[in-house]
């Protein structure tokens, strides 16, 4: 069964017949070919599917496609503007804050909202902020450094 939904996806208004028994994550990946958000646990514990919905980080594996009507979603694909990477993405590259990359889109989307709400987080605040995102490769150190470095970059841009 499908239902017509209207929502904003990465800044663009979208009209879409969404299969009802589908999660937001599956809809993004299969209907829109936005494969940045990943399915890890499928139960809201790993954060690999994190996207920004109406300004807050959510697990897209625990949102129904039908719920999207009238809402706004940003995925990792919507973070770069005109081919220019977001400072967070640049920082993850420069700090080598990824290995297999599976957790990276979710990690960056969580960090994006974290820095919006708290532009200069302490190390502990970053750790708490990304505690819903699991990384099995890096040991988190470089991820935390990348988020700190992006925070400095945003700060410099705003001055």
């Amino acid at each position, binding site marked *: *069964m499908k239902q017509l939904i209207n929502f904003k996806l990465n800044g663009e208004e979208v009209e879409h017949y969404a299969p009802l028994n589908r*999660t937001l994550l599956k809809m993004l990946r299969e209907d829109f070919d936005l494969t940045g958000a990943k399915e890890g646990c499928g139960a809201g514990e790993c954060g690999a599917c994190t996207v920004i919905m109406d300004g807050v980080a959510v697990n897209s594996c*625990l949102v129904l496609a*039908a719920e999207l009507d009238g809402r706004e979603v940003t995925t990792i694909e919507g973070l770069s503007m005109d081919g220019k990477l977001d400072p967070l993405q640049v920082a993850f590259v420069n700090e080598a804050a990824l290995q297999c990359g599976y957790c990276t889109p979710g990690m960056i989307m969580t960090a994006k909202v974290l820095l919006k709400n708290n532009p200069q987080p302490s190390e502990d605040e970053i750790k708490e902020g990304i*505690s819903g995102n699991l990384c099995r490769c890096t040991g988190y150190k470089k991820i935390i450094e990348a988020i700190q470095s992006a925070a400095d970059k945003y700060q410099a841009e705003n001055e």
Partner: protein
Amino acid sequence: MENFVYYKPQTLKECVSLLEEHPDAALLNGGTDLIIQMREGLRIPTDIIDIKNIPDLQGIKVGPDEIFIGGAVTMSQVYDHPELSKLFPYLCDAARSVGSIQIRNRATIAGNLVNASPLADTATPLLCLEAVIHTYGPNGTREIPLNEFFVFVRKTLLEPNEVVTGISFKPDALDKAVFTKLSRRNEVDLSTVCCSVGRKGGEYRIAFGSVAPTPLRLLDVEAYLKDKELTDDVRREAAEIARGTVSPISDVRASKEYRLDMVANILEDALAILQKEG
């Protein structure tokens, strides 16, 4: 996931009519439990009634006589609320201890209570606050004291066609309280034992989660502590009474014996904090 029909009612009345028409429907609020259960095939609702947009379920009202948390209010809306975080830090601590930021942006306080998990984190501070559950159903509204609301593991007094419209409590219900959560991991974990201990004048209110089929008040311990000075001996005796009052089980998170020890330790520590901070 199996197929279902999706409804987004705009009023409580519409919502209750839908529930009456569709006996195998499920209410969708934050979805952080329901959608997992649906994905695992544990629940196969024919219809989904998404209540989170109903205007009557929105918002937190801080009045002189009552605090009201709407049925669709999320965990993060609770602890991000400036007045709630100032007046009820222990409630905010409990809300902040649930899941991850992604979960807390969706999960609701009402959902936490309605699910009636024995370890519902926000239940213990609300039990100490003597909170009241407000419902709306075919026969109108009801107010159910939270202390009576939980019946058994995942069973409450909520009728099949009723919706929780909000949770209320008195602003001056407690002078001070402490929330404690013991879990294997500090973040994104379920409680091994959770507890709130509050004081109002010479009276104490004590609630534990994960040590019985439902979150519960320890009335025997409260009666023992009434008007007593919290000396070391009194705290120790209270902890011993608490140990005899609860009925934890052994499960994947901890053994029964460990939980019993922790009930005593957490209570003693929480009373010490209340004593020290006055």
